[in-house]
């Protein structure tokens, strides 16, 4: 492992500790939901990290189809795996948050349903990669799914705007100024940065593994 990757790992670990401090120490108890709202500092950064991952799948897929360079395919495959991981965390933490606030673990609300579809599409993307042995064909098929699957990202994000939903509308990344109180927004930002750093660290390690796997196959 490269020294820079190791340093990134330590930086991500430090950022996560600071993020926990911000979520449980610095951020105030929310006025209506009480302390259960602290799940937001994990739930929201998780889906934003997943968006980033799937955007990289799109980039890697387009790059691979345009150039046929294995590096683009490795980027797409690695980011896809991490996108599924972070989407899974989003769904589970959202479900745990939903039980005390909505009274149910799950409902077929537009945001929840589109997020579940996003999770299934990219799980299918990973399964497809596992089913095709020939690297060039695997990269080509996966790139098509990676590009088509990205169409679901705006559907997930804007679902709360387009359809009547139980899930609250976007309070960040929306067109209007965020109504979140400054300490809550700061804690959210710190945790977003922390999960992004962790994502970049995982991505660097996963790409390195993909390179070793390709080397082992070619040898």
């Amino acid at each position, binding site marked *: 492992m490269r020294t820079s990757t190791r340093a990134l790992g330590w930086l991500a670990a430090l950022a996560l500790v600071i993020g926990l401090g911000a979520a449980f120490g610095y951020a105030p108890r929310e006025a209506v939901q009480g302390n259960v709202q602290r799940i937001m500092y994990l739930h929201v950064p998780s889906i934003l990290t997943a968006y980033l991952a799937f955007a990289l799948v799109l980039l890697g897929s387009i790059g691979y189809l345009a150039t046929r360079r294995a590096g683009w395919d490795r980027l797409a495959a690695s980011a896809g795996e991490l996108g599924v*991981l972070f989407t899974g965390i989003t769904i589970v*933490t959202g479900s*745990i948050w939903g039980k005390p606030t909505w009274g149910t673990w799950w409902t077929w609300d537009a945001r929840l349903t589109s997020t579940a579809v996003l999770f299934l599409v990219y799980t299918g993307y990973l399964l497809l990669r596992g089913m095709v042995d020939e690297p060039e064909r695997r990269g080509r098929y996966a790139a098509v799914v990676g590009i088509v699957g990205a169409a679901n990202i705006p559907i997930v994000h804007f679902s709360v705007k387009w359809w009547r939903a139980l899930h609250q509308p976007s309070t960040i990344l929306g067109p209007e100024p965020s109504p979140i109180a400054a300490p809550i927004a700061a804690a959210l930002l710190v945790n977003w940065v922390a999960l992004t750093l962790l994502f970049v660290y995982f991505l660097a390690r996963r790409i390195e593994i993909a390179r070793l796997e390709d080397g082992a196959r070619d040898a």
Partner: protein
Amino acid sequence: MPDKMMPDHWGYVFAAYGVAAVALVTYWRHLVRRARSLVARQRGKEGKAA
């Protein structure tokens, strides 16, 4: 201040953070093990070739 505030539900908060921690640590351990086995395999091949 609203009239009714929800109870704290700390159990749900710790469950959410706990599940996420388990998922992330498990994935990290998977990456470490996979990288280690691939490097060992590569070194084994290089040793045989030499």
